[in-house]
């Protein structure tokens, strides 16, 4: 008995189990809801349906009706409505659910169909697995274990096609491995709006290639590598670096803009090898810009700060913190926070500002957005600073007020958390007038001018949260251990707060969150461990009037655009 469907839900029967799914869902997605895997190559949930790989074959049938009376036909054997099974398998990706649709995903006909498709796909597939970077995450390998025959009946010569073709600066193509699924072609056309890929020639001569005179060089080219079900498209940067089965996956958030693209850090024994996107249908779907993927190189950069310094000479963290405490206690302090710091760090910095009576500043970092996954605000966490109260107004690119204050002698000590004050408009002459405490990861003009350097951790080395442009709070975790000599930002900031004599805050993310929840109204109901991996939307009402710089991107519309749309309708 099929239960009455809810509005805009369709009830279908998959392998004997009834399930209600939203209208327009295809059979692959419906089966996924029942944890039934329908193998597929060309289908991708975020791309149009091509239906060319023929791997997602299913058996389907519809309830029988009498053609004359339109009355349901009952099967006398079961007493239920008879199902008219289609005698040939159908593709699951191109089959949209209809009321009462019956599907078999593992019948013998389906299994035969899949085995047939696998045999055809493997006919011309080279025996490259030992040298192929896709090995271990290759759909063809996976399905070959389930539906391959284990030996080949093909005695003719395999196709020869171009190997090691550079499609662009970041993507290498091996045409022999290509199974012509066209995911990359559809991605370039539909998502990246850079229609440079296509197939040329026919039959077994079909070859994926770039448009003559063009290159696959848009900032989303590496997504084609991610969605390639085989090893045809591989990342030139990751080429032959490490086999994927050795790599540990850690969830993180892209730090290049306020979009907050969900990503995964792939590391082995403290070395990061690559970054790939993580699916979040509310933020980035399954995509990630190329520019965000190379940011892991900052971790092992040669200009990393790894020595605590006091007036230019190496010292211990305790001595440096002691000297910093003396500067902070002397008063006339100004604090420059960072839109790249986590919510937790900004919270502690706010506490430090309160304890020293300092004003919190932030440096804006803007560039034009690409309307997809890079926004105009290149700081990942400006909204975190608003939420924690470190700043009350949107930041400017230059610290003009701070320059004036220093010039007038109102400020004696500047604490910079990872921001290059020189780049933010403070001249060397101005910096020479004040004592600079630099808490940061990489050497720059400010660290060169700083009296005290406290080396801290890169985003991939610590845990925390960012608040993205949608006011969605998203978690990231420590993927690799810190380099020797660098200390967690939270530890440094907590010790600085403690040294002012007010109180001693916790210096670990989980332990700090109860204090954050108690002090920050927007975060009152949550704890670090309770934030889901896809993030949590915060109430943005207090900041809705601020003139945020972001334009429209994927899954984000600025408040002004929403208001304009509402006014039109």
């Amino acid at each position: 008995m099929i239960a009455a469907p809810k509005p805009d839900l369709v009830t279908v029967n998959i392998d004997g189990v009834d399930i209600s799914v939203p209208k327009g869902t295809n059979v692959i997605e419906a089966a996924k809801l029942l944890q039934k895997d329908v193998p597929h190559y060309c289908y991708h949930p975020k791309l149009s349906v091509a239906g060319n790989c023929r791997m997602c074959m299913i058996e389907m049938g519809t309830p029988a009706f009498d053609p004359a009376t339109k009355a349901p036909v009952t099967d006398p054997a079961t007493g239920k409505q008879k199902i008219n099974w289609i005698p040939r398998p159908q593709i699951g990706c191109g089959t949209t659910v209809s009321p009462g649709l019956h599907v078999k995903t593992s019948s013998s006909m389906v299994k035969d169909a899949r085995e047939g498709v696998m045999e055809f796909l493997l006919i011309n597939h080279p025996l490259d697995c030992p040298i192929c970077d896709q090995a271990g995450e290759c759909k063809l390998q996976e399905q070959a274990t389930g539906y391959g025959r284990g030996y080949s009946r093909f005695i003719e010569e395999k196709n020869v096609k171009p190997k090691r073709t550079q499609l662009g600066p970041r993507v290498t193509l091996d045409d022999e491995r290509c199974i012509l699924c066209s995911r990359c072609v559809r991605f370039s056309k539909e998502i990246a709006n850079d229609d440079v890929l296509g197939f040329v020639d026919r039959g077994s001569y079909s070859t994926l290639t770039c448009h003559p005179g063009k290159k696959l060089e848009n900032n989303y080219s590496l997504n084609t590598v991610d969605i390639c079900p085989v090893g045809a498209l591989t990342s030139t940067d990751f080429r032959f670096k490490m086999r994927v089965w050795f790599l540990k996956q850690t969830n993180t958030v892209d730090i290049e803009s306020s979009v907050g693209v969900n990503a995964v850090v792939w590391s082995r024994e403290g070395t990061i090898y690559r970054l790939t996107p993580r699916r979040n249908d509310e933020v980035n779907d399954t995509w990630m810009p190329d520019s965000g993927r190379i940011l892991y190189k900052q971790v092992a950069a040669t200009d990393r700060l790894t020595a605590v310094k006091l007036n230019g000479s190496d010292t211990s963290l305790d001595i440096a913190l002691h000297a910093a405490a003396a500067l902070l206690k002397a008063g006339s302090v100004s604090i420059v926070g960072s839109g790249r710091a986590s919510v937790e760090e900004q919270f502690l910095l706010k506490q430090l500002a309160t304890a020293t009576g300092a004003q919190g500043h932030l440096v804006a970092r803007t560039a034009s957005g690409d309307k997809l996954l890079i926004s105009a605000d290149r700081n990942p966490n400006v909204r975190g600073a608003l939420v924690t109260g470190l700043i009350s107004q949107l930041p400017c690119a230059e610290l003009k007020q701070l320059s004036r204050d220093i010039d007038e002698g109102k400020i004696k000590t500047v604490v910079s958390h990872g921001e290059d004050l020189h780049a933010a408009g403070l001249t060397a002459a101005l910096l020479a007038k004040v004592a600079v405490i630099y808490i940061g990861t990489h050497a720059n003009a400010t660290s060169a001018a700083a009296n005290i350097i406290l080396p801290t951790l890169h985003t991939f080395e610590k845990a925390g949260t960012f608040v993205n442009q949608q006011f969605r709070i998203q978690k990231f975790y420590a993927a690799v251990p810190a380099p020797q000599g660098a200390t967690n930002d939270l530890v440094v900031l907590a010790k600085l707060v403690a040294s002012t004599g007010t109180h001693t805050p916790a210096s670990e993310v989980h332990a700090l969150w109860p204090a954050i929840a108690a002090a920050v109204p927007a975060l009152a109901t949550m704890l670090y461990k309770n934030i889901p991996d896809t993030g949590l939307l915060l109430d943005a009402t207090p900041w809705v009037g601020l003139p945020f710089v972001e334009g429209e991107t994927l899954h984000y519309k600025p408040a002004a655009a929403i208001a304009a749309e509402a006014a039109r309708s």
Partner: protein
Amino acid sequence: MATITVERKPLSFLERTYIPNIVAGLTTTFKRMIKPTETLQYPEQRPAIPLGYRGVPTLVNDPHGREKCVSCQLCEFVCPPKAIRITPGEIADDEPNAHVEKRPKAFEIDMLRCIYCGLCQEVCPEEAIFLQNQYSMTGFTRAEMVNDKDRLYELGGTLPDQHYKWDKKKSAAEAASHGGHH
């Protein structure tokens, strides 16, 4: 615990003379003096190695002198004591074996960790790693006991190849470029 007293049997007359035991013992001694010796004068003399012996793991070249390892790292993955450490590398386009694309940049087997299980040989898809006849590894330092890539190829030498997989691949590509099967 209870103590059980066992009565010792008195020795017979012959036993008390020790003569039968001395005769039996000397018989064995004289027999051994005549028989050929079993002792090997190791290390000058070495035992014959049976077929299928699992000695020190080595890397081998094919008869055309190509290094067979393509650094797929399956042996590193399967190795139970984690004795193998490979750094993969690319073969440059101007080298003779450029069509193989990949080879190990570094390949180290820590013989202090190796348990001679032979799983690396079993898992190798390129038939590049073999546990051959060498069984004796000595060194004065731990570092000496780590076989690097050069040492592994020196130990392994060249073994016959049944497939010539990559040579076939290259000749197919060459035939295609001269208008053969595409």
